[in-house]
């Protein structure tokens, strides 16, 4: 705005007037979208961090193994169940923190091939033993080739694992005699582990 002038007879004088009141204060500032690295229960970078699954109590990992064969395999007492392709049915896990390992298995068909009664077990076993000294869980049945020819075994257990140790789970067959076989097909033989933080 141009200043207002008045003539006093000899010169122009600038008319000055008082300014209006000072305007109101601005609103308080607001926070901003967070930036930078996340930590604690989060990971990654703000504002889109990831969630640390162990801190959240979430499922950390899953392992699965299953049979891949199509023909019966004979099994002797003390032997691990095989996957039908020349190796043990097994899963392994090496936790980075102490965890719970929920392991379950199914042997859908265990056949007794001789005409005598014997007891046959499938025993879920981990090595080494967990933090409480637990290693195994057994399921047994008495069978005879012409009576209980085919019977399943299944079971599971929660293991308490220490950090930085590699644990391996297998299924061991044992019996008090006789001859036995199982079918290592993918619908008949499986071993599954699920990992949760302690």
């Amino acid at each position, binding site marked *: *705005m141009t200043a*207002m002038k*008045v003539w006093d007879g000899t010169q122009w004088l600038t*008319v000055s*007037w*008082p*300014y*209006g*009141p*000072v*305007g*109101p*204060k*601005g*609103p*308080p*500032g*607001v*926070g*901003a*979208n*967070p930036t930078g690295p996340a930590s604690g229960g*989060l*990971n*990654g970078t*703000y*504002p*889109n*961090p*990831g*969630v640390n*699954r162990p801190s*959240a*109590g*979430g*499922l*950390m990992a*899953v392992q*699965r193994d*299953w049979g891949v064969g199509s023909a019966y395999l004979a099994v002797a007492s003390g032997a691990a169940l095989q996957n039908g392709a020349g190796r043990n049915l097994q899963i392994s896990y090496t936790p980075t923190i102490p965890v719970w390992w929920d392991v*379950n298995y*199914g042997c*859908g*068909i265990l056949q007794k091939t001789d005409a005598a009664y014997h007891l046959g077990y499938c025993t879920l076993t981990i090595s080494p033993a967990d933090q409480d000294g637990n290693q195994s869980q057994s399921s047994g049945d008495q069978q005879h080739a*012409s*009576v*209980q*020819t*085919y*019977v*399943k075994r*299944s079971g*599971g257990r929660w293991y308490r694992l220490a950090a930085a140790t590699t644990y391996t789970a297998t299924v061991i067959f044992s019996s008090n005699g006789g001859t036995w076989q199982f079918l290592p097909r*993918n*619908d*008949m033989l*499986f071993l*599954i582990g*699920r990992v949760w933080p302690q």
Partner: protein
Amino acid sequence: MGALKLWDGSAWRTVPSGVGPQGPPGDLSTDYSPRGVAGGGLADMYPNPSINGSAAGTLLNAQSLRGVAGGTWSAIANNYVLSTSGAQNAAPLLQLVYAPPVDAWWTVNCKSWFNKTDAAYHYGYLCLVLSPADQDGLSVVRLIEMQHSTVQTVCWRQARMTWRLAANQSYTCFARFECSGGGWNVMQNDQSMVMDGMAYAQ
């Protein structure tokens, strides 16, 4: 404050007032909490975002089916789907349906009791069936028992499988009975006929 006036010889005129200077900056914030949209493993808005269950690996979904209170033995034949209705292989079937919003692990647990009603040996399977097959091609789990009405009259089967599901695909998991012959019953009461499902993000 009064307005400035000038005498023009005949009347007082109001000198238009000026606009005051801009006010001082606002106060510094004392609220340092973050603002804006949360993403990644978080959801909703800062400063109070929620946790994205998929990222956290916490339970995404749970389902539970039971037989009927006071239920009793119900005849079942080869390839019948277990049911909580009066007749087997008829709705409502013992089955769960789930379409995960993300790739997921789906642990399904099923337990049933079977009764052999004739005096001959036959085998009977409890089959846990997933349709379509999971991401590794797995679709069936079978557990067998050999039974005879006067020997192994009643036996249970329990199938528990963790399926690997693809996101946005609808899956059905149901319990099917398979046998080599003979007469069979399945127990329908709510303690003996069970199917549970729990899903977690991969």
